[in-house]
């Protein structure tokens, strides 16, 4: 078992009387892709900032690459690549200049930064935009440039805070593809997301965070197995009918969840449940059988939808 690159034990961040992170413990192995999954305000970004050595913890223990971020901020930051939630690209500089200038902030030699910048433009599929203004890039391109910039110092860990929030589906898939390649090359990824599909795509292992605490930990498939079922049947009877119908389908599948707009039946076979429903004379307006996802896990763990 290789040494973990991040070890967090009982990590706490308190602002005056508000507790943003409330005793979080986890470890990340080198080369692993680790996710913090949770709704807005769960404490994900604050945790990321403490690991990124730009925020001081209130209590608990934290070790990044074997060092304490409170004492070795610059040393740790020199080994990290940071993709913040909001792009903070340098709008006064051109695309390639953004990479050159950022590399120099790390004190890296000019020639090495220039060579690396060209490689990264290629990797981020921005080589033909090298001389463009940042403002003229699309949202997806800006995001890829931010990721390229975070890689300029060949970081040992890449921190990604909500990497694809606000991007259209196509741009998301391009970005996931790039991140997947990094993972294949052995870069350790630590990412926050509130998208279940993103976590399933990119994370080897993840923790579900809510209100500053860890609710569950495991691989995506593992969590789905533990906290959900193989399939989910979603049915809608119309908002006035759902509650009434709920009483009649009690005991269906492994579990039934009644939401304001729909009913979820967790089962190994959604089709079977639907047939049973139809046989009982129930006629849903719409029905959908789908694979269970991390969304269902979150709902099960917290009683709430992930995106509210």
């Amino acid at each position: 078992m290789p040494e973990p690159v991040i070890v967090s034990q009982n990590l706490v961040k308190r602002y005056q009387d508000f507790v943003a992170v409330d005793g979080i413990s986890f470890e990340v192995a080198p080369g692993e892709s680790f996710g913090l999954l949770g709704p807005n305000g769960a404490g994900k970004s604050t945790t990321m900032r403490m690991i990124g050595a730009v925020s001081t913890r209130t209590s608990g223990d934290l070790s990044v690459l074997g060092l304490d971020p409170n004492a070795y901020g610059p040393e740790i930051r020199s080994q990290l690549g940071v993709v913040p939630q909001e792009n903070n690209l340098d709008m006064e500089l051109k695309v390639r200049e953004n990479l050159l200038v950022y590399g120099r902030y790390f004190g890296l030699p000019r020639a090495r930064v220039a060579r690396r910048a060209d490689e990264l433009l290629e990797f981020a599929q921005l080589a033909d935009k090298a001389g463009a203004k940042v403002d003229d890039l699309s949202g997806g391109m800006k995001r890829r440039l931010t990721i390229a910039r975070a890689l300029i110092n060949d970081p040992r860990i890449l921190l990604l805070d909500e990497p694809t929030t606000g991007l259209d589906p196509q741009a998301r898939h391009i970005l996931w593809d790039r991140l997947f390649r990094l993972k294949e090359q052995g870069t350790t990824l630590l990412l926050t997301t509130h998208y279940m599909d993103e976590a399933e795509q990119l994370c080897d292992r993840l923790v579900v965070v809510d209100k500053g605490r860890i609710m569950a930990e495991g691989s995506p498939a593992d969590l789905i197995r533990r906290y959900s079922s193989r399939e989910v049947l979603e049915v809608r009877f119309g908002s006035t009918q759902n509650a009434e119908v709920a009483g009649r389908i009690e005991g269906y599948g492994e579990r039934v969840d009644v939401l304001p707009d729909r009913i979820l039946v967790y089962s190994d076979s959604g089709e079977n449940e639907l047939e049973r429903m139809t046989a009982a004379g129930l006629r849903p307006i719409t029905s959908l059988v789908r694979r269970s996802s991390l969304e269902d896990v979150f709902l099960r763990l917290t009683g709430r939808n992930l995106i509210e």
Partner: protein
Amino acid sequence: MTGPQLSPATVAASARPPRPFSSVYAGNARSVMARGWRATRSTNSLVVLSGFVEPIFYLLSMGLGLGALIGQVQTADGTQVPYAAFIAPALLAVAAMNGAIYDSTWNVFFKMQFAKLYEGMLSTSLGPLDVALGEISLALARGLLYATGFMLVMQALGLNLSWWALLALPAVLLIAFGFASVGMAVTSYMKTFQQMDWITFVLLPMFLFSATFYPLSVYPQGIQYVIQTLPLWHGVELVRALTTGQINLGLLWHVLYYAVMIVVGLFLTTRRLKALFLN
């Protein structure tokens, strides 16, 4: 708050203790300055030009125009000099102040509040003092450029009355350094555009009343004391003494005044940037 030993070192650096000040200064302010050069080159070249010609317009209109009516004026130590030679060093000090203030206030305010530039810089191995020194050095470089141009115009018009005038260039840098570091410190506490307007509100009267266009002796004694506490007055007196060649040991007080401004400004800026971005 060292708890249980977590994991053995995975980075060689952990073997040695952190350098003193390593959390605020990485010794790489030049990369911040280089970034400023690039940005200025591509976006702000016109602003640079306007800052250069403004004091020259003042000198031509007031120094030569008004000067023809006024004739000779008495400097602080009682020597009579032509009016243009009296106000030229003051305008030089003002140009240094304005250049430094522009770079360290509006520019910095924008980068902090909107561009999130410092947030990006401080997630690299740079520290807040690198950022402060880099930004201020850029302001100084611009100040030096303006001042050199202005000195050449002064020389052409015969307004440098002594070889001591050569020392006016480092003096102007000192003035710019003082204003830039205090300007950046003040800006780092500002949150809105309205608050930024206060800076202009303070600078304009200081420009008009700091013995810029007439000797301090025209004021009653009480007001003289007030003017003598203002930073620009010290700058004007220092530069004027050098370009008119009236050297005395008392000038060191002006130098000391600026040295204190620099240290206090840098200290506050560094502390504030650290609180804002590395909390």
